[in-house]
């Protein structure tokens, strides 16, 4: 069947903010889908609250609503736009759940909107635990013995029959939120209660534990006619028991004989046929390691993280094909864009393996529980491609930016064998390194397999690496050993270090191979490459060379931002992609290097050539050597690319834009201080220290509170405010333990209004597209602050000072392109607190709201164009008549034991935007989008630190006026009643059995305001309260400024029914401008 011509106007629901379990992959999928719709000239209405996405770019859809992803809002948009269809399967779990809600609420029926692709019945069959089990039983597909429970009692009685362990999975939640493995009655009681609460339909699945079985996934597709294909199989390195998002994954499956493979493949195809999926679907299986016994674990009838991985691993664009299927096409009518001559109705075959390695946030959350289980904890991932598993895993590990370039993790050598074995048994993010350490100690593969249940195949492969490492450490290096090392994935740097050879007399350069979907069977033209090492005698052919030779254009290399992590999210992929597009527009040939499979930048048609390689200097230089570009752009890939600048410069690579020296000046504390001094620009006083004593002395000199942080950091990693010597001692211990050899910075903490600007400078003219003001005063990381544009409290005088100071810094640093500066205003005086000589995370949202194409301007200016020729003038760009509020979004419910108290270290994983006619409306929409339920009645629990007690009464009064009852712990209660407020006293945890925890558990409390001087350590009362809040899903405000803003927002009278619906493509001021032109 070709295109269904009755489809004229389609609504697409995006996946909203980045949270753990739902990252950039949906921007990649969504962008592909929107392009596929555009190809058919279909009008598209897009709803997504995440401004940091490519899919919400003006050109991607006809109507773009950066609005809250809540039922009422979407319903109102449907009412207004009257689409005829809804594409539900591309917005992750959020998009799917909302579509189902719209269907159940009768909205779709009422407005004659039909769901395209996989229909409501099919979604129900896959998502509703009971219907799913029944459907599987009907087609003889085994599932794990389980029971659907609507209360804790039912869960307990199931466990009594099957025995422990049992796994709890809440229905309709994301990335296993609220699930877990219970080993006994007590644990089950807690996990079940929690899971029931997290499930929007109060339902959990309790199933028999089958940890240790192999976990195998299939990405499959089905069209309307019922044609079915498998895109990719994937095998988890980690057996069942660890969420697949937290597992190391290899594609294709490698330990299955054809009989097992075909058994599961047929099962997957039978399942999507029985469900009636139209589009893409992910099927997860558990396979007994010693028999043909298997069970279907889960089916996701939508594009997913796994489908993004499968797309990048095979070259098969699942989201695009799924969209075409939704529009009526059959698989054999859709061209395979990789070959251009074959069709989507085939199964990719690989002549390499792809390995995915998760990126976890434990480097930032040192108190977080590192154990992995059914609840996903990784924020992002990297993928690597090679023709041996050894090379692939080595590339993945060094690409993950965890400070490793081999599998040897130094601090594990301190563990004795007994501890090592014990830790191996309980999976954590470090397990593969524990395994490697065990191999080094000659603990047998069989014993490791017994302890970890990791298939021997993987262990033998790791042992190959271990054996080689031992060889070169003991034997003299020779050419053949060197070649072997390259085939195993070692960098030259690592080989030198391990072998002790100072200079290697050999050099093997990578041969780049194409990802062509067909194992070389057909001629392909997609310039999507990975590096491997194949010597000339082996016939090694570098497939990139023909492509390089074929073009006469000037060439630029853009370095991507690597895995999504806290502090470096999708915003940097947005900026990288826009940089690539701008360069293409300017007539350059653009080469992208990146290793994140979830992104738009690694889509094979974003640049002219894509190298899917780790972002280490050695890997990058290998590419630069053959590409021989005019220069490299590092300004848009966050700290990942900035980190490479100095080494690139040393290798005589031209840095386009702000020079390597200027970047160093901005990053090097001392040089930067000298510059500011020279320019007579204020900054908080500070010292650079190397020891505990030094830090204590510095703090004494500066007077507490002081801000401590290591130099060269990202997202405020390991940054705290110290209120006294104890804090300094605790902090320095953590830092020095990490083998930090860069100095630690101690600065006076200045309390004031935080201002942020992104600016573009061409050497003469400066353009500030917008000044943003943070709702929270200094002390909270800018990424975790609510940022408002235009800045409400910055008058003309201050704005002038900001412009002037920014320009001085740009001139001083010799900026060429983009820069981000954070200021604090204390009693109208401006202090610089941070300068980033690169694009920041506010670039996407500011670009969208102001209409200034910031990345394009910065790219053009970097290459010598002048701002005044680019049509956006200079100075401070005129403010918009709308207020835009960026609200951070956190993933605390996924991270056990992390203190949710905000501070100088960034904790948020994503962001949303609220756009309104005024600050109150924008804030209301922003908070709603960020997941605050914003109920306007009930009660508030307050417990704040002494320094903030003077301010709390005014905020409490607002909540009281709205109609909330107030609860507080003794000290805070004293203050509140002293101000004449009626307050109920609550016992602290140690004071009484009936205490704050029981209050929270009782479900009476709607908001919590909790601040404390001490945090982080999960043993502290305040942290326990905040963790409980996170578990129970109660909004917990840890800054008085946020609390005040929430109170104002609640008082403002806005509801989801009366906020304005703003189409980004029809912002009135921009429309007027367009008309004027």
């Amino acid at each position, binding site marked *: 069947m070709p295109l269904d011509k009755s489809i004229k106007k389609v609504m697409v629901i995006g996946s909203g903010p980045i949270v753990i379990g739902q990252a950039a992959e949906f921007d990649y999928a969504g962008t592909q889908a929107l392009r596929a719709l555009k190809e058919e000239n279909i009008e598209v209405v897009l709803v997504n609250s995440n401004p940091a996405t490519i899919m919400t770019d003006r050109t991607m859809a006809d109507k773009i609503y950066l609005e809250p992803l809540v039922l009422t809002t979407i319903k109102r948009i449907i009412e207004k736009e009257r689409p005829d269809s809804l594409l539900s399967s591309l917005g992750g779990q959020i998009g799917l759940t909302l579509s189902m809600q719209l269907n159940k609420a009768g909205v779709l029926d009422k407005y004659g909107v039909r769901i395209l692709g996989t229909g409501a019945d099919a979604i129900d069959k896959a998502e509703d635990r009971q219907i799913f089990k029944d459907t599987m039983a009907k087609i003889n597909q085994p599932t794990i013995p389980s029971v659907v429970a609507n209360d804790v009692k039912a869960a307990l009685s199931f466990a009594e029959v099957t025995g422990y362990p049992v796994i709890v999975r809440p229905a309709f939640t994301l990335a296993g939120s609220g699930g877990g493995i219970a080993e006994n009655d007590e644990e089950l009681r807690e996990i079940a209660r929690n899971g029931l609460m997290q499930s929007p339909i109060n339902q959990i699945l309790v199933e028999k534990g089958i940890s240790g079985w192999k976990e195998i996934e299939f990405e499959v597709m089905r069209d309307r006619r019922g044609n079915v294909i498998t895109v990719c199989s994937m095998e988890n390195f980690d057996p069942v028991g660890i969420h697949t998002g937290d597992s190391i994954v290899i594609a*294709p499956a490698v330990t299955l*004989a054809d*009989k097992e493979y075909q058994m599961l493949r047929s099962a997957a195809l039978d399942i999507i046929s029985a469900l009636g999926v139209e589009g893409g679907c992910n099927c997860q299986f558990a396979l007994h390691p010693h028999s043909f016994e298997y069970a279907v674990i889960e089916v996701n009838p939508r594009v997913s993280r796994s489908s993004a991985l499968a797309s990048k691993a095979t070259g098969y664009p699942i989201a695009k094909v799924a969209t075409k299927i939704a529009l009526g096409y059959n698989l054999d009518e859709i061209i395979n864009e990789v070959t251009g001559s074959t069709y989507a109705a085939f199964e990719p075959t690989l002549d390499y393996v792809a390995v995915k390695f998760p990126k976890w946030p434990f480097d930032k959350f040192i108190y977080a529980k590192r154990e992995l289980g059914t609840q996903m904890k990784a924020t992002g991932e990297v993928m690597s491609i090679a*023709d041996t598993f050894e090379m692939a895993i080595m590339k993945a590990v060094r690409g993950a930016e965890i400070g490793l370039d081999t599998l040897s993790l130094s601090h594990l050598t301190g563990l004795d064998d007994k501890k090592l074995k014990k830790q191996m048994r309980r999976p954590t993010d470090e397990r593969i390194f524990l395994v490697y350490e065990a191999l080094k100690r000659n603990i047998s593969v069989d014993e490791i397999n017994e302890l970890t249940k990791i298939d021997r195949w993987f262990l033998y492969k790791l042992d190959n690496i271990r054996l080689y490492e031992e*060889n070169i450490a003991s034997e003299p290096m020779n050419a053949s050993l060197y070649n072997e090392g390259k085939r195993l994935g070692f960098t030259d740097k690592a080989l030198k270090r391990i072998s002790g050879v100072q200079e290697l007399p050999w050099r093997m350069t990578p041969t780049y191979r194409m990802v062509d979907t067909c*194992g070389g069977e057909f001629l392909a033209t997609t310039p999507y490459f990975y590096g491997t090492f194949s010597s000339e005698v082996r016939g090694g*052919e570098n497939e990139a060379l023909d492509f390089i030779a074929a073009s006469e254009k000037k060439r630029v290399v853009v370095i991507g931002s690597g895995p999504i992590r806290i502090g470096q999210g999708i915003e940097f992929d947005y900026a990288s992609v826009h940089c690539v597009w701008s360069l293409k527009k300017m007539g350059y040939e653009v080469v992208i290097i990146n290793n994140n499979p979830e992104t738009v930048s690694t889509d094979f048609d974003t640049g002219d050539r894509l190298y899917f390689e780790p972002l280490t200097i050695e890997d990058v230089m290998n590419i630069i050597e053959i590409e021989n570009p005019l220069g490299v752009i590092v300004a848009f890939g966050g700290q990942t690319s900035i980190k490479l600048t100095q080494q690139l410069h040393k290798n005589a690579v031209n840095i386009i834009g702000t020079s390597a020296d200027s970047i160093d000046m901005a990053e090097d504390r001392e040089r930067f201080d000298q510059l500011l001094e020279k320019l007579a620009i204020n900054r908080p006083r500070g010292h650079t220290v190397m020891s505990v004593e030094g830090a204590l002395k510095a703090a004494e000199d500066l007077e507490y509170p002081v801000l401590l942080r290591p130099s060269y950091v990202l997202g405020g990693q390991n940054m705290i405010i110290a209120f006294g010597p104890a804090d300094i001692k605790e902090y320095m211990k953590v830092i020095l333990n990490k083998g930090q050899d860069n100095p630690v910075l101690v600065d006076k903490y200045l309390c004031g209004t935080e201002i942020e600007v992104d600016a573009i400078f061409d050497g003469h003219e400066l353009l500030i597209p917008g000044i943003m003001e943070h709702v929270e005063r200094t002390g909270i990381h800018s990424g975790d602050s609510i940022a408002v544009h235009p800045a409400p409290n910055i008058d003309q005088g201050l704005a002038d000072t900001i412009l002037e100071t920014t320009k001085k810094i740009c001139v001083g640093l010799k900026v060429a392109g983009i820069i981000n500066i954070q200021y604090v205003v204390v009693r109208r005086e401006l202090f610089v607190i941070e300068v980033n000589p690169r694009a920041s995370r506010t670039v996407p949202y500011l670009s969208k709201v102001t209409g200034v194409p910031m990345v394009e301007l910065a790219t053009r200016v970097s290459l010598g164009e002048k701002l005044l020729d680019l049509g956006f003038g200079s100075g401070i760009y005129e403010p918009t008549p709308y207020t835009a509020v960026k609200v951070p979004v956190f993933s605390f419910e996924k991270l056990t034991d992390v203190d949710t108290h905000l501070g100088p270290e960034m904790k948020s994983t994503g962001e949303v935007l609220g756009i309104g006619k005024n600050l109150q409306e924008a804030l209301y929409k922003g908070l709603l989008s960020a997941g605050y339920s914003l109920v306007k009645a009930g009660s508030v629990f307050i417990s704040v630190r002494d320094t903030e007690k003077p301010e709390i009464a005014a905020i409490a009064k607002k909540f009281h006026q709205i109609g909330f009852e107030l609860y507080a712990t003794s000290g805070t209660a004293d203050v509140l009643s002293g101000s004449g407020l009626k307050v109920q006293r609550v016992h602290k945890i140690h004071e009484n059995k009936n205490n704050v925890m029981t209050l929270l558990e009782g479900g009476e409390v709607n908001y919590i305001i909790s601040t404390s001087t001490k945090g982080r350590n999960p043993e502290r009362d305040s942290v326990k309260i905040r963790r409980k809040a996170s578990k129970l899903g109660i909004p917990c405000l840890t800054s008085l400024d946020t609390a005040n803003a929430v109170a104002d927002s609640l008082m403002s009278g806005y509801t989801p029914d009366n906020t304005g619906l703003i189409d980004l493509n029809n912002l009135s001021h921009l429309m007027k401008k367009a008309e004027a032109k």
Partner: protein
Amino acid sequence: MEKAEHEAYLILESGKIFQGKSFGALRGTVGEIVFATGMTGYLETLTDPSYYGQAVVQTFPLIGNYGVIPDDFESGKIYMKAYIVNQLCTAPSNFRSVSALDAFLKEQGIVGLHDIDTRTLTKTLRSNGVMNGMIALDPADADMDIIGKYRVKEAVANVSTRKIYKLGAPQSRFHVAVYDLGLKTNIIRELVSRGCEVTVLPHDTKADRVLGLNPDGVMLTNGPGDPVENAGIIENLKILIAAKVPIFGICLGHQLLALAHGFKTEKLKYGHRGANQPVKNLFTKQVYISSQNHGYAVVTDSIIPGVADSWFVNVNDNTSEGIWYCNTPCFSVQFHPEACSGPRDTAFLFERFIELMEVNQYAAG
């Protein structure tokens, strides 16, 4: 990491040389070099008699991962001349595995070549077409004349059974005479599991002898070589066709059935060998993913209208993948509904064969 492995070379007809290492039997050999793209199923590939006379290159770089599993063999031995892989797994892992691939090839006396850049080799075969090649332990042994003159000959005679044998329960509902042209065991399993008694016949069994068995149907199996070489079998087939016995042809069987009806075959540039080939049923428009292994194909234009209809075609290159005969109870497919290795998506064709026999039994009274 194996030490002291013997270097070995692949010298192509074109003169191009690939260096690798020897495994299996330590010697040289000559063969027609073909590539196969399946990511699993190397045991089925190794024991598939259709590869007789050929040296097979695996495009998937990790081979031997799950060791050697005798239950998965498709015939009693390895018929190919040599097996060429990138990374050979020396420490396999699978609950059914009894040994590693190297030992299996040694035991079978088959030449193996590993550590070869199989992607570059495959691309060479793709652009130049199928070529002969020699595997030599010393490149000085390469004899371009021998390489150039090598042909796969008398292939079917060399792989077919010498003796007649029976399988399946006696007195089954259907009795199928199977012409063994190089059969993969799973064809027999598929028939037996559907209630057939099977008599497996040597390739040169005369048509009279077949008809004397009074079978409900005749199965023409897969097999190696150029189909037009099998003139004797084609003559016998003509008699069976005239006798209106239901016939099901697979792969070589499909080609022979076409030749017996007066259609033509041709050699493909580099053939189809893999587990991911899409075929489309032209009657229903349904697409199936199939397992394939063939270097020759029926020329679609040579199908005589009125005698037969083109039934399946390859979605990628439109070559003939199946023929439905109009006046005789015959049908055939180029791909492998018996899978092993590869997708089982077209196993239903065995049911079609059963139905055909059923209808024929009924019509015959």
